[in-house]
């Protein structure tokens, strides 16, 4: 019986980062998906700490908040950065990518058609290229955001880029040689490569 039980809806969403960290670390976990949310979610919701998923059950505790869970699993797996300063550098990449995701989300869910078109244009043509340029400068040439090995920062960069790319036009990675190296390192990690091949196709 695995020590970790992750519960989320049947999708990638905010849980996928946790699944990717488990995959990279080769740590077994129960990947529970709420198959019939209309039936099951109203009953389950009050049992969660903040009325949301994902949650991670470990050592008799229920953790919530996707980034906190990802950071915890990364620490257990040694993928969070070796020193406090390195861990902070990993965190800051996570936070930056969180901003990318949030802005994409806000654009995607904008109800006014005209505003949405405007926001989409700004996001794809101005925000993403500018932000990815920043990140490319930060990562340099090593193919890793922090230290010289895979960390949660690299995995988060991959995951957010992957998710955003489903709904928006991403800037071409060819102009960002540093970031391209990070993507290659992440997708060729054996655990992650296996998960990417095997993970289910889901609506989100």
């Amino acid at each position, binding site marked *: 019986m695995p020590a970790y039980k992750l519960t989320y809806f049947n999708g990638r969403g905010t849980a996928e980062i946790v699944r990717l960290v488990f995959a990279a670390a080769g740590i077994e976990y129960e990947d529970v998906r709420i198959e019939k949310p209309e039936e099951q979610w109203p009953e389950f919701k009050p049992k969660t700490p*903040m*009325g949301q998923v994902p949650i991670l059950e470990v050592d008799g505790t229920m*953790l919530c*908040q996707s980034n906190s869970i990802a950071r915890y699993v990364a620490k257990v797996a040694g993928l969070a950065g070796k020193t*406090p*300063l390195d861990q*902070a*550098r990993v965190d*800051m990449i996570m936070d930056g990518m969180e901003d990318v995701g949030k802005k994409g989300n806000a654009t995607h869910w904008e109800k006014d058609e005209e505003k949405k078109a405007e926001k989409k244009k700004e996001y794809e043509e101005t925000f993403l290229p500018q932000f990815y340029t920043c990140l490319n400068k*930060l990562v340099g040439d090593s193919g890793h955001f922090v230290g010289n090995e895979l960390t949660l920062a690299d995995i988060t960069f991959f995951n957010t880029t992957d998710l955003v790319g489903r709904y928006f036009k991403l800037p071409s990675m060819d102009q960002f040689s540093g970031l391209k190296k990070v993507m290659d390192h992440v997708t060729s990690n054996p655990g992650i490569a296996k998960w990417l091949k095997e993970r289910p196709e889901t609506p989100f």
Partner: protein
Amino acid sequence: MAPKYKFTYFDVRARGEPTRLLFAAAGVEYEDVRVRRDDWAALKPTMPMGQLPILEVDGVTLCQSMTIARFVARETGMDGKTKLERAQADAFVDELEDLVPKLAMAMIFTTDENEKAEKVKELDKAIAEKLGKCEKLSGPDGHLVGNSMLWCDLVLYNIAYDIEEVYKSGTLQDYPKLAKVYDTVRSDPRIAKWIAERPAGQFNI
């Protein structure tokens, strides 16, 4: 000898104040650099992600406000006693930190009257939801997690200060456990001293 830490933010509380509160609580010296709004445009392109705050330490420039706060909490022993406690503290911060920009927009930075009424409505809803969740999960003795003051308590304190002192006094009455956390933080002697002495800032947020 220059302090080990140099913290640069706008001349407000908002996203930077939890870090300043941590330094105060721990009695750790740092350089508290404040950027006025007019001076920002020139500085922006030199920042790692084009934003403030940043923390300069050991030749590294950190960005992202909660990352910096978590790092300083770790440096000062206020991030949590175990991995699980740290994750629980993180979860509180994740939940609460969205309130900071919502407070700023509703209280100060929206000038159009109709838009402002919308933002206030949104803010009230967010406050009720988020404080409600945190009240349910909070420890009973003036600490959100475990039995010592952690950085999540300071994040809550900072938001609660804006709500109680600037936005809608009396709100915390509905959240007795959070009110206890608020009181525990502000009666800590080093924090009380900082609150009494800190600059008013360019904006009251």
